[in-house]
């Protein structure tokens, strides 16, 4: 027979006003198995808790029911109290007689009866509670960071500086991400590369960071603390251990007319190339789609067309036969920091719901460029050496129209959200333009200016007030090429006047979107993503850098549009979360997880199909000689989050969710 104590709280007047607490205590005292039942003014107060502790000792209680407020309020409090009194904390439960009873009813008799009922359910439930101990999971103190942009770099450095090993995987030939393409950064106008490249080098030289550039995550298995990740190292065609980055190969490559990704298509690069001079690692990659040798081989040509790079390489580092390789890494935590891409206004989009801008010519009008292209034009390392020149004819544009919110905040084009950074970088662009093109006129069409952030509003004011940018509140309905100029037809909604501008160049602040392929990566990691492909955080406010899969974290613009300070802050936050996780060799988790009775499990694996976390595995039951008897389900306690969907779907009821076992629920219903 159980020895249960019932403690009914008045919560001052909150419960006592409508519920006859003494009557509840008395009624519960008459239940079989209840050996102690009292009511008290404030159970959560120190004297109240002392009453519980005292009763546990005095009456040798093996179950404590506190009839008071919502368990969301004080379950932790009272579980701690009973733990201090020496019994397992899971032998304490709460009956919610405040939020679910006294506060919502006026009839004292009805409310009292209901309070008795609710408490009785819990008394009967607790008779089936068992002591539970936290689950301990070993932790591999090594992290994987996916994405080598500023967020990935920051996360990797913070974790590595914290003393743990990091594997940094970047799909491009160099780390640096979009930040390396930027000219200057708002709101300080400091040179982007000047602050980024030292961090890149730091990553490269860090003893605890294993950098895998030109590589992609292929497969992820395991769970928090114990992931096994397979990384595909793409073939560079260059032996990285031999190459010294001298750059001779690039000079001799005959095909130098390839649009440079780094220069957003405005500059050219050879078929063997490093994306930019400060690339880390400074090892070239052969672009097989554009290299004459590989193109020839693809056509089964008898002779290799060109081997100039191989001939010139003094270190014999060129390896045309190099193949992709797969490496397995064991890590305990994963940071997703894959960043963003820019929306384009072309008619053909990669997603059904997104359409382009026909009114802006679907991207066919010359000298209509996007923000990143302007960054390259304005960058000293860019194709024009930092001069603002029109891509079409190299003329200096005297009138430049900047359009904000292209694709963003436009449900008709499929993207509802605000891309956050455009207001700021367009302001920056107008300043750079003002500095570089004297007498040039920048005209900005905006919907409204969102400059929340330290020094941000001041920055946009500066653009307007000191740099003569003309800000027009309104949208551009149409643009077309007319001879040498781009006719921009817009509307100034403040003056109510239509505007016809003859522009020399137009810059579109196109929306930020997650990187292509994010969905398949998210599926590999079993993290959820929204309809635009942004990774979902576990809680929008309280768990902003965690995902719904334990051990997988998110930083930067793959979660939502982020600027550099945001991305860095998130990255440091993930690092701190991960270092916290890595602070012990074992991880403690709440033991409210599912457990399979392997004796009765029939091995139908309905549980495997419904588990949102992939926490249920196949387990082979063998006899002493090692013969297979049957294959049954087994729950990985490290992965299970305790939803209990497996249990409801188990036909033979061979899986039990601890804390909500069938016995417990059955007892509560039976007490109805």
């Amino acid at each position, binding site marked *: 027979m159980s020895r249960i104590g019932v403690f009914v709280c008045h919560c001052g007047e909150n419960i006592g006003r409508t519920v006859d607490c003494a009557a509840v205590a008395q009624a519960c005292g008459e239940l079989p198995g209840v050996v102690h039942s009292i009511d008290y003014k404030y159970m959560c107060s120190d004297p109240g808790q002392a009453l519980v502790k005292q009763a546990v000792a005095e009456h040798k209680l093996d179950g404590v029911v506190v009839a008071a407020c919502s368990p969301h309020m004080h379950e932790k409090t009272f579980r701690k109290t009973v733990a201090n009194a020496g019994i397992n904390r899971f032998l304490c439960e709460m009956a919610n007689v405040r939020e679910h009873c006294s506060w919502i009813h006026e009839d004292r008799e009805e409310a009292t009866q209901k309070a008795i009922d609710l408490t009785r359910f819990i008394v009967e439930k607790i008779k089936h509670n068992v002591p539970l101990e936290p689950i301990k999971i070993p932790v591999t103190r090594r992290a994987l960071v996916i994405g080598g942009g500023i967020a990935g770099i920051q996360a990797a450095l913070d974790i590595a500086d914290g003393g743990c090993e990091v594997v940094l995987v970047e799909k491009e030939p160099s780390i640096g991400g979009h930040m390396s393409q930027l000219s200057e950064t708002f709101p300080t106008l400091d040179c982007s590369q000047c602050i980024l490249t030292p961090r890149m080098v730091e990553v490269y030289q860090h003893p605890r960071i294993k950098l895998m550039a030109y590589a992609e995550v292929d497969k992820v298995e395991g769970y928090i603390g114990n992931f096994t990740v397979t990384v595909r190292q793409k073939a560079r065609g260059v032996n990285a251990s031999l190459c010294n980055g001298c750059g001779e190969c690039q000079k001799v490559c005959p095909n130098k007319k390839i649009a440079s990704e780094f220069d957003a298509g405005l500059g050219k690069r050879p078929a063997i190339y490093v994306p930019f001079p400060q690339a880390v690692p400074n090892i070239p990659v052969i672009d097989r789609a554009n290299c004459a040798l590989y193109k020839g081989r693809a056509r089964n040509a008898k002779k290799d067309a060109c081997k100039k790079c191989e001939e010139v390489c003094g270190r014999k580092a060129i390896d045309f036969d190099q193949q992709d390789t797969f490496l397995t890494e064991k890590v305990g935590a994963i940071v997703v920091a894959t960043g963003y891409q820019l929306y384009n206004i072309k008619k053909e989009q990669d997603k059904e719901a997104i359409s382009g801008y026909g009114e802006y010519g679907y991207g066919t009008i010359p000298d209509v460029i996007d923000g990143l292209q302007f960054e390259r034009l304005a960058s000293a390392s860019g194709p024009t050496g930092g001069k603002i020149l029109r891509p079409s004819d190299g003329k200096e544009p005297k009138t430049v129209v900047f359009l904000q919110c292209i694709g963003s905040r436009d449900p008709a084009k499929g993207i509802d959200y605000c891309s956050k950074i455009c207001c700021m970088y367009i302001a920056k662009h107008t300043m750079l333009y003002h500095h570089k093109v004297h007498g040039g006129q920048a005209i900005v069409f905006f919907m409204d200016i969102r400059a929340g952030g330290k020094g941000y509003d001041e920055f946009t004011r500066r653009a307007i007030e000191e740099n003569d940018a003309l800000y027009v509140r309104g949208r551009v309905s149409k643009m077309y090429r007319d001879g040498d100029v781009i006719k921009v037809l817009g509307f100034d909604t403040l003056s109510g006047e239509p505007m016809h501008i003859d522009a020399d160049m137009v810059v579109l602040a196109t929306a930020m979107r997650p990187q292509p392929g994010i969905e398949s990566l998210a599926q590999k990691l079993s993290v959820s993503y929204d309809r635009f492909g942004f990774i979902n955080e576990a809680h929008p406010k309280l768990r902003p850098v965690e995902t719904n899969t334990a051990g997988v974290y998110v930083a930067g613009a793959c979660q939502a549009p982020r600027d550099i300070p945001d991305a860095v802050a998130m990255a440091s936050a993930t690092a701190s979360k991960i270092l916290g996780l890595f602070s012990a060799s074992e991880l403690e988790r709440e033991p409210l997880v599912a457990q399979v009775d392997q004796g009765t499990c029939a091995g139908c694996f309905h549980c495997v199909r419904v588990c949102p976390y992939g926490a249920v595995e196949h387990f082979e039951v063998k006899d002493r000689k090692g013969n297979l008897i049957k294959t049954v389900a087994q729950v990985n306690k490290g992965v299970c989050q305790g*939803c209990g969907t497996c249990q409801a779907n188990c036909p033979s009821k061979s899986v039990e969710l601890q804390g909500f076992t069938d016995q417990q629920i059955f007892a509560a219903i039976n007490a109805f």
Partner: protein
Amino acid sequence: MAAKTSTDKASFKPRIAAFVCNWCTYTGADLAGTSRLQMAPNVRIIRLPCTGRIDPLFIIKAFERGADGVIVSGCHPADCHYTSGNYHARRRFAVARDVFGFMGIDPKRITFSWVSASEGGKWAEVVNDTTARVQELGPFSAYREMEARV
């Protein structure tokens, strides 16, 4: 203990069991409480982690134990704390509702709802509507009187 319901329709006080998920509806009901939304006192909540954990057996057992009505409530689609428990529950309940109804259990005695943590008002509505509906139907004594055999 299980107070038997009176068979007299006028003095009939419906007894309703509610199976709700911890993250949305239970919290929504908490909110109804903190907002002091008055509602019918006939509903008794049993807390589960997720609608995914709610088995149609619970409903059967509640009726066996004297419930005149049952409420099952959890997170709205896409809001599940465990991502997909409510989607599985939705399929399960869709079948259960038809099967139970086919066996003669009036579907009006069972309410399925999505009530989020911010919908304290909706919870009060669900409670009041269900209570009124069951009040109208009268006690479900047929279920408990099944035991006697010829």
